[in-house]
């Protein structure tokens, strides 16, 4: 390829994104947000190879032209049912006919400007939204059953969709939210989920990412704990052609507690990049993060765990643990805790390891007649199963166990295809 046809990918992506946003069909309820986001997008560069936060993740896959078209495929008929209450969002648009919500939860079709989200993909999400879903949980409501939100993306050719979900938990409310991403085909899901919790609110949150191997996902999950609230988040994620998950959490009222548990698996040639950032901005908040990662074949996984303790956040308790397992030498996992602490009166612990299967555990299984391949499969499943065994909702655990077992068995054929 000669020099003058070489692509400036960040510039190209930005031009595409701006054009798409300017040409998008107007939606009245979203107009102010879209204008706002467009202005921000104009002033923001897309990441290139030298952008630190994108060090391990190349956007080269997007040269296939995902931003050139909107995803228009139909949702598969058989969607997993994990609760009686659910929302189905197809290519970013709510499927109203398949909506069933419990009492005490109000559905809205708007979106707000989100403080703390400054990435170009989040701005693009806001600038080009076709639809948005907001769930408001009324104060003092204990929502009877989980709400399952299915984010479906489908397309046969490279295309993309922008997905936006906002959930606001009123004072003293309780909710279990199951977010499930199911992309089929070479579609990029550009997702933003924002959750706000008021005083005494308690959210149990699941993020299940079981997209097809050829799909792409760039998403941000935002937690805003504006009240003395508790959020327990469980994130199960399979790598695909490109998966980038940013999680940003703001602990903004003393006494707030955030617990995040995650499992990520990168097999064959799949990719997953987790960028976590927890902001302790006020005194006496607690955050606890436990992530387990697993990579095999030529899979690539990344975790960057940033904990930012602001000067006024005395009495903070913050922990981050990330253990990883490499199944073979061709796989790669990069993990880095990143602590920024500006107050002396805090307790902050972190640990990150990358290891291989334990030879003695393997011998023990084999000495009981279990063959080497099955022993490896059992041990790698066991490595992440500790977290699955701790899932508080049985329906999710029942879905997760076979899904994970299949992921760990590898996706037969995928590697040969890619090779």
């Amino acid at each position: 390829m000669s020099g003058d046809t070489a692509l400036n990918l960040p510039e190209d992506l930005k031009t595409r994104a701006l054009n798409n946003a300017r040409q998008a069909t107007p939606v009245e309820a979203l107009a102010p947000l879209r204008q706002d986001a467009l202005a921000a997008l104009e002033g923001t560069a897309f990441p290139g190879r030298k952008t630190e936060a994108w060090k391990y993740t190349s956007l080269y896959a997007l040269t296939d032209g995902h931003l050139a078209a909107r995803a228009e495929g139909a949702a598969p008929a058989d969607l997993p049912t994990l609760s009686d209450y659910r929302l189905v969002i197809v290519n970013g648009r709510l499927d109203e006919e398949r909506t069933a919500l419990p009492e005490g939860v109000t559905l809205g079709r708007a979106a707000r400007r989100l403080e703390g989200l400054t990435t170009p993909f989040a701005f693009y999400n806001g600038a080009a939204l076709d639809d948005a879903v907001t769930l408001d949980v009324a104060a003092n409501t204990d929502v009877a059953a989980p709400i399952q939100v299915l984010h479906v993306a489908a397309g046969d050719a490279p295309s993309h969709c922008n997905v936006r979900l906002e959930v606001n938990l009123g004072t003293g409310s309780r909710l279990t939210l199951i977010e499930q991403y199911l992309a089929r085909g070479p579609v990029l899901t550009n997702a933003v989920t924002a959750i706000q919790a008021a005083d005494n609110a308690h959210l149990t949150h699941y993020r299940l990412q079981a997209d097809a191997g050829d799909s792409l996902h760039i998403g941000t999950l935002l937690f805003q704990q504006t009240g003395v609230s508790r959020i327990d988040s469980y994130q199960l994620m399979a790598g695909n052609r490109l998966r980038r998950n940013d999680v940003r959490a703001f602990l903004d009222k003393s006494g707030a507690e955030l617990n995040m548990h995650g499992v990520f698996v990168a097999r064959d040639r799949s990719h997953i990049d987790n960028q976590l950032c927890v902001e302790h901005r006020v005194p006496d908040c607690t955050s606890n993060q436990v992530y387990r990662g697993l990579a095999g074949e030529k899979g690539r996984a990344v975790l960057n765990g940033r904990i930012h303790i602001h000067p006024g956040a005395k009495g903070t308790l913050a922990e981050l643990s990330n253990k990883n397992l490499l199944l073979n030498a061709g796989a790669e996992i990069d993990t880095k805790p990143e602590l920024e602490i500006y107050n002396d009166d805090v307790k902050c612990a972190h640990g990150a390891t990358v290891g291989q299967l334990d030879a003695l555990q393997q011998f023990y299984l084999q000495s009981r007649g279990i063959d080497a391949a099955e022993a490896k499969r059992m041990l790698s499943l066991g490595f992440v199963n500790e977290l699955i065994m701790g899932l508080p909702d049985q329906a999710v655990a029942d879905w997760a166990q076979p899904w994970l077992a299949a992921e760990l068995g590898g996706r037969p054929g995928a590697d040969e295809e890619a090779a």
Partner: protein
Amino acid sequence: MLEIRDLHASVAGQPILKGLNLTVKPGEVHAIMGPNGSGKSTLANVLAGRDNYEITGGEALFDGKSLGDLEPEERAQLGLFLAFQYPVEIPGVSNMEFLKAALESVRAAQGKEEWDSVTLLRKAREACKQVDLDAQFLKRGVNEGFSGGEKKRNEIMQMLLMEPKLALLDETDSGLDIDALQTVAKGVNSLRGPERGIVLVTHYQRLLDYIVPDFVHVLSGGKIIKSGGKELALELEQHGYGWLTSGDNGDNGKKDQTA
């Protein structure tokens, strides 16, 4: 069933067994005793096929097959069982799931009928009861957070279910209080039978009060230096290993004086 001839073995390149001979026939219970570092555990691990435990000379035949040629799982499928001195903790793999995988594989290899999950659970509960282990342990991760005694009971529980032809027990008595020792011994004794061989590797005589062996061997310096009946164990208890291990003719005292 087990025929060991002039066996030499190294652990990570270090020679440990130096010409060991041992024959175990069906129905026999053998005790292998010896001081620390004599090679007792090495023998057990070599026979089970642990990595880095390498046969460098001689042979170990199990039902006529050379163990050195077989993977650990193939040895188990033939009916060899090692009760570990230090059972391994495997968090995230439940005891029950582990038993299911092990029994499916071993029973299929031995041409025994497959147990459905109801039968398996019933048998597993019975085996737990036999070794005084709460059935709740079946749901927990393999040996995860078990006490020393619970781990040993878990080994015997597995052994009862696997019904091996040859059971090797590597210091199963270590770390057990007297009640646990009796329970474990009862479990082992229940497996005694004309078809089955049992090899007890132990440092102390007290296990042999409860599991009475047909033969006792003293292992020292990587060889069996004395064999006898159960009374040999009592002699060892009284006199220690010194009178056997200090020299070829037991005249160590003289040597000390001249040294």
